[in-house]
């Protein structure tokens, strides 16, 4: 009585559908809300299930109770016919502000319930999280393990470039990154065994290749195809990397092709087997003019790489942005212009990515 008009309660003539999730818990849901899901709708119409607790509709496994709650919220809002497009859009935008884990579960569950508009909405949201981000950022957002080796990262994309110089540059970058990473680790730990192991392995390699420390490259060049196939050793360590001629002194003297080929070859000897295979082929095809150009470019990049890495890359990339149209000339007189970060950043991941630039 004291409740006033509320005291007289008319029983609502609402019908409910009973749903059972994979963990066994059963819920009842208003009929019009549940029927918004095509899968539930079909179950009800075809099998007549869902009308009571004992005959609850079993939902697919990908739908757990928490996610079911979210889905039903979505259905509850959208099944009302009178809503304007703007209202629906606003609701959707708020609705998908979930963490990535929930978003993925929601996508999966909506798909199993055949709720196509929700699948579209969540897929788009997930795509937005991937769009335009660097791989590190994406990995962080979705908690992906960084379990590809360096060459695997380059591999599918390696084929995207036809320019041997770009390949060379990629390798240089990759190696530099590895070196930095290794240096980082070395700072924290003082374990020598690891280095010793790899060093000895590489010595073994050079032995197989039939050379001593410096000229291992030269021999490797000749035996390129055969030997490289046999190799599948772990990657080079930083100590071996220093053996390569990234020191200014050595690289300054670039006019002689022999030095260059030594550099090329030693680079490939140090680096992983699979990529070397291509190196050898490329070396054979290069004519001296091209080699000289490459010499110069290598020198250019060696100089750059020796400066602080991340800031330098950023500079190169932003320069690439401003001077979009610095072409690489292929003429023989060696007037090689600067290779902008653009060329490299395009389909490669070895450099920190900025937002993709559109060509004019």
């Amino acid at each position: 009585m004291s409740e006033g008009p509320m005291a007289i309660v008319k029983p609502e003539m609402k019908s409910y559908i009973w749903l059972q999730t994979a963990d066994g818990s059963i819920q009842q849901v208003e009929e019009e809300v549940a029927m918004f899901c095509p899968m539930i709708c079909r179950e009800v119409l075809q099998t007549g299930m869902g009308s009571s607790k004992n005959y609850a509709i079993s939902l697919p496994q990908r739908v757990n109770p928490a996610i079911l709650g979210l889905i039903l919220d979505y259905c509850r809002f959208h099944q009302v016919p009178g809503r304007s497009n703007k209202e629906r859009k606003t609701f959707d935008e708020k609705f998908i502000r979930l963490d990535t884990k929930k978003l993925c579960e929601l996508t999966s569950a909506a798909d199993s319930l055949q709720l196509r508009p929700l699948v579209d909405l969540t897929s788009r949201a997930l795509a937005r999280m991937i769009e335009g981000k660097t791989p590190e950022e994406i990995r962080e957002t979705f908690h992906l393990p960084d379990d590809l080796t360096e060459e695997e990262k380059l591999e599918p994309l390696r084929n995207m470039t036809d320019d041997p110089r770009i390949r060379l540059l990629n390798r240089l970058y990759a190696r530099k990154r590895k070196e930095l990473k290794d240096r980082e680790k070395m700072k924290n730990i003082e374990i020598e065994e690891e280095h010793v192991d790899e060093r000895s392995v590489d010595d073994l390699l050079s032995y197989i290749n039939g050379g001593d420390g410096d000229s291992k490259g030269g021999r490797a060049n000749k035996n390129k195809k055969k030997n490289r196939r046999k190799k599948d050793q772990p990657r080079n360590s930083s100590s071996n990397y220093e053996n390569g001629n990234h020191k200014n002194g050595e690289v300054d003297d670039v006019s002689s092709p022999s030095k260059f080929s030594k550099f090329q070859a030693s680079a490939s000897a140090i680096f992983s087997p699979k990529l070397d295979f291509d190196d050898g082929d490329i070396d054979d095809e290069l004519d001296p003019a091209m080699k000289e150009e490459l010499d110069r470019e290598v020198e250019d990049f060696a100089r750059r790489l020796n400066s602080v890495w991340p800031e330098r890359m950023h500079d190169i990339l932003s320069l690439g942005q401003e001077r979009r149209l610095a072409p690489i000339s292929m003429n023989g007189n060696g007037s090689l212009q600067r290779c902008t970060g653009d060329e490299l950043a395009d389909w490669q991941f070895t450099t920190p990515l900025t937002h993709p630039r559109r060509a004019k």
Partner: protein
Amino acid sequence: MNCFLWFIVFSKRKEPPMFPFNAEMETDKISKLPGHIMDRILSHLSLRDAVRTSVLSSRWRYKWVTLPHLVFDNQSVVLSSQDQTLIKNRIVNIIDHVLLLHVGPIHKFKLSHRELQGASDIDRWILFLSRGSVKEFVLEIWKGLRYKLPSSLFICQKLIHLELFNCLLKPPPKFDGFKILNSLDLQHITMDQDVFEHMISSCPLLERLTLMNFDGFIHLNICAPNLLFFDVGGVFENVSLENTFHLAIVSIGLYANAGYDQNVILGNTGNMIKFFAHLPRIQRLEVQCFFLKYLAAGKVPGRLPTPCIELNYLSIRINFNDVEENLAALCLLRSCPNIQELEMLARPEEQTSVRAVANILEEDYLSCPFNQLQLVKIAGISGGRQELDFINFLLANSPVLERMTIKPAALDGALELLKELLRLRRASVRAEIIYLDPER
């Protein structure tokens, strides 16, 4: 303790970071989504971003290769060079490699890079696609001459949507149409007259047809029983719609001002009647550029033999100073009783002397009500007598008019126009007349 650290570091070097191991494996939900959902997510990205996901983790290496839609445009292939050879090489390289790495059916292929000229490499890709079951094919050549399509395009019998820009179509003699083609969009293309007619008539399921700036044929003989949407803009001599009883949306623009010698149009049926003969279900009609002149050629009846009862939107580009065009416009207006939205745009460039203009008859005011007309837009007028007559006629016959928007061509005479507009009586009490300033 050292050993413990060593162990951790050791595993760190070789394997994915193990700390915090369990939490990471649990929360990496996205990699476990089923393939078709992953395809859908990746298809919202540009192809470039999608391919880049291959370096995220070992599970992601080949997630993108099953993408059913491949779009190669300026977003997916970013170039920084201006050297045409380099550009071509790069684009060709990328497309070659994507196609080679791709797995599974390709449903949509779009190539529309602004820097790409027609090249024989495109032939190779079309051949590759023709061996599969491509459903949508879009090719836009933005630079260079018309690109001659290879014969292998014409054997893609699974095509549902074909869109070509700046191409030359010369199908092989055995070509007998695309049996399930639903939508055809040809812009800046060249094809022969008989090729065109054969193409249209041998695509029985064709529902949408767009033709813009075409060369090589001048007679638009369209025989398409399932056609719903027809959009044309170009230079042609005549239009003949046959068996198009479902055609609902038509937009026609005749870009050339061909003089129509009235004596040449033989017979009793003028173009107006011929055009509407097979358009009983038309709902939206746009008469653009000089097409009204075309319709006005020949005998123009007072109204069409069969009214267009489903027509609810009409837009006409008209020269108010031309008698025949006025007659044609009146004929049209008298024949669409259920029109809801009307747009009349004056053609500005013609300064023909005002001949004896067609008068809107008194009886029209009584027998031609626009009981559904709610929205009227009139633009480019200069306040001439004829124009005001039309406006008067519309206002007097539209009992449910909500809004009429008027935009003169120039500020000259705008004041006079406004004065005249104020005087006009309106049948609808709710009608607003909105005056818009002319564009500068």
